[in-house]
C-alpha cells in the first residue's frame, strides 16, 4: 500500500532529467572554462595593459596591416574556391547512383582529413617547389619554370586543400535535405540539367553555401602551418605574426592584441552569417561536419 502511494506521477519521457543533464555537461563546461575562457580573458587583459594603445600600434604597423590584408584576402579567395569545389563534389555525391563513385569521392575528400598539417603542406611543396613536379613538367615541355612556392596563391592552394573536407561535409549536409524529385520535376517541366540545378538546387541550398563559407572562412583566418610552409616570409598570416611576436620580439601584448583581433573577426563572420541565413542553417552545417 505505501509502495503504491509513494509512486510519483510523472509522464514518461525518453530524455534525461534536468539535474542529471547538468551533471553530465559539467565536465565539458569545466574544460571549456579552464582551457578556453580563462586563457581568453588573460589574452584580453594582456593586450589591454596600457589601455588599448597596443591595438593602435599593431593595426598601424606595416607588418600588422600586411598580415591582416594577406590573411583576409587569402581566406576569402580560399573560401570561394572551397565552397565551389565542395559544391561540385557534394552534388556528385548526392546525385550519383553509382556507389563506387560516391565512395571514391568520400575517400578523396576525407584523405586530407587523416593527414597531419605538416605532411599535407610538404606534399604541396614537393609539387610546386622550383624543382618540383610541376616545374619539372614545364621544363620538359621547354617552358620556363615558374616561382610558385612562397607566394599567397600557394597559401590559398594549401588552405583550400585542407578545408575542402569541411566544405564538403557542411554542404553535403544541406544537399541531403534536397528532394531529388524536385530536379527531376524541373526537367520534366522543361528545364535543362544545368537550368534545374540553378533554378532549384542553388536557391534551396543557398543558406547552406553561406553557412559553409562562414565556417570555412573562420577556420581559414586562423591557419598557421600552411602560411609558414607555403607562404614563407612574403605572405605572413596573422598567426605567423603572432608567433613572431611571441618567440622573436617577445612582444606578448602585441601577440595578444593580434589574437583578439583574429578571434573577433571570426566571431563577427559567424554572427553576420547567422543573422543572414538563420541559426538553423549554420547549426545544420556545423553539426553534420
Amino acid at each position, binding site marked *: 500500500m505505501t509502495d503504491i502511494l509513494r509512486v510519483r506521477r510523472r509522464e514518461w519521457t525518453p530524455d534525461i532529467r534536468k539535474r542529471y543533464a547538468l551533471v553530465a555537461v559539467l565536465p565539458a563546461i569545466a574544460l571549456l572554462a579552464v582551457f578556453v575562457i580563462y586563457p581568453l580573458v588573460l589574452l584580453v587583459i594582456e593586450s589591454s595593459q596600457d589601455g588599448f594603445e597596443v591595438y593602435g600600434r599593431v593595426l598601424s604597423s606595416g607588418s600588422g596591416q600586411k598580415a591582416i590584408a594577406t590573411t583576409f584576402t587569402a581566406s576569402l579567395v580560399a573560401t570561394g574556391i572551397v565552397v565551389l569545389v565542395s559544391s561540385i563534389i557534394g552534388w556528385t555525391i548526392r546525385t550519383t547512383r553509382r556507389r563506387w563513385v560516391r565512395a571514391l569521392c568520400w575517400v578523396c575528400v576525407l584523405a586530407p582529413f587523416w593527414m597531419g598539417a605538416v605532411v599535407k603542406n610538404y606534399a604541396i611543396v614537393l609539387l610546386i617547389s622550383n624543382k618540383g613536379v610541376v616545374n619539372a613538367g614545364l621544363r620538359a615541355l621547354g617552358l620556363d619554370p615558374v616561382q610558385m612556392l612562397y607566394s599567397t596563391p600557394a597559401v590559398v592552394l594549401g588552405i583550400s586543400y585542407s578545408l575542402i573536407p569541411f566544405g564538403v561535409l557542411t554542404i553535403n549536409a544541406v544537399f541531403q535535405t534536397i*528532394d531529388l*524529385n524536385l530536379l*527531376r520535376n*524541373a526537367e*520534366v*517541366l*522543361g*528545364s535543362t540539367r544545368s537550368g534545374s540545378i540553378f533554378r532549384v538546387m542553388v*536557391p534551396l541550398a543557398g543558406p547552406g553555401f553561406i553557412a559553409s563559407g562562414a565556417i570555412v572562412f573562420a577556420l581559414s583566418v586562423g591557419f598557421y602551418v600552411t602560411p609558414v610552409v607555403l607562404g614563407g616570409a612574403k605572405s605572413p598570416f596573422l598567426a605567423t605574426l603572432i608567433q613572431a611576436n611571441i618567440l622573436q620580439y617577445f612582444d606578448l601584448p602585441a601577440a595578444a592584441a593580434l589574437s583578439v583581433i583574429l578571434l573577433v573577426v571570426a566571431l563577427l563572420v559567424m554572427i553576420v552569417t547567422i543573422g543572414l541565413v538563420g541559426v538553423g542553417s549554420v547549426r545544420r552545417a556545423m553539426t553534420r561536419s
Partner: protein
Amino acid sequence: MTNDRETTMNDDHVLVLDAVAKSYAGVLALAPTSFAIEKGEFLTLLGPSGSGKSTLLKLIAGFETPTSGAILLRSLDISGLSPAQRQLGMVFQSYSLFPHLTVAKNIEYGLKRRKWSAERRRARVAEMLAIVKLEHRANALPAELSGGQQQRVAVARALAYDPDVLLMDEPLGALDRTLRLEMESEIKRIHGQLGTTFIYVTHDQQEAMHLSTRIAIMNNSQVVALGRPDDLFRNPPNVFTAEFFSDATTVAAEVDDRTRFRFEAGGDGSWAAPAGTAPGRYTFGIRPRAARLGIVEGAPVLRGTITSSMLFGDEVRLFIDADVVSGLRVVIPSRANTFAPGDRVDVSIPWEDAILLPNAPVTSRAFHAGATR
C-alpha cells in the same frame, strides 16, 4: 465486351509503345510491352509493387531509357529524348512542389521554360488556378498548403503548358482516405474538363476503377490484361486479374465431354456448363458479390462453414471454409445477415456472374497487349 482491337487501330493515337522493354544488368524489369493510347484516354497502370508499372512510367517520362523497343509520341520516337524534350506533364507522389516558389510561380515554371510572354503566363496561371480552385492561394508557399491543395497545385503545374500526356505516379498515395476520394473526383473532373490524355499509376484497384477509361494490369514485369474497367472486372482474362482486380476466389474445376461442370477437389455435385463450353480443365472464379447464399437453380454450389464475418456498414463480408476451397469471401447485405460463425451454408454462383477461365496458357477476350510471347 468492347472490341479493343478495332479502337486501337485507328489513327488517333497519342502514345504508342512498340515492344518497349527494360532490364537492369540482365534482370528483366519490363518484358516487351506494346499498346497504344488514344487522345483523351485515362489509362491506369495497375499492379502490385514490383510489377513493373513504375518502370513503364519512368520509361515514358524519360527517366529511364528502354533496353529495346520504341516509344512514339504523336508518331515521333521519343525513346532517346530527355524528359525536358518530351514535353510531357508529370505529377509525382511527393508532389515535388518547389518549396522556395509560390503557388503561382510553381505553376508558371513550365511556361517560363517555354518562353511564354509575361502576359500570356499571367493569364494561363490564373486559368489553371481557377481550374484547380485555388485562386485564393496564388501567393502562398507550398508549405502553407494542405496535402490536397499541394496535390492540386502539382496537377495545375503539370497541365499548365498543355502537355500531350499527363503522367501521374501514385499521386494519392500520401493522402488519407476521405481526401483520396475527394481528389479522385477532382482528378476525374479535371480530366473531363481539359480532355488531356492521362496515364496514371496506382496499386489500388478501387482507385483505378473509379478513374480509368482503360486499365493495364501489370504483374511480373508485364502487362497481363488491358481493357475497360467494367470488362476486366466482370470478365477477367486470366487468374491474376481475377484474383487481383476482381477480388475473386479461384477454384480448380473441369468440364467433361457431356459439358458437365464439377470442382476438381470433389464435392458431390455436377452441373450443366453454359452452352458451348469446351471440355477441359478450368479455373472457376468467385467474386464476393457474385455468390449467393442458398441454392440457385442450375448454378454450381459449394458447401461450407462460416468462419468469421466483417461488417462494412451496409454490407457484411463472410469468410467461409468450403469443402473445395477455404477462405471463400461472400458479401451480403447487412440486413440479410442472419448467420453466425459455425453455421453451415450453401453458396451458389449463378453462371452469369461466374468467372470461368480455361487452363490454357494464353487468354483471349479483352486482352490484346504484347508481352504474351
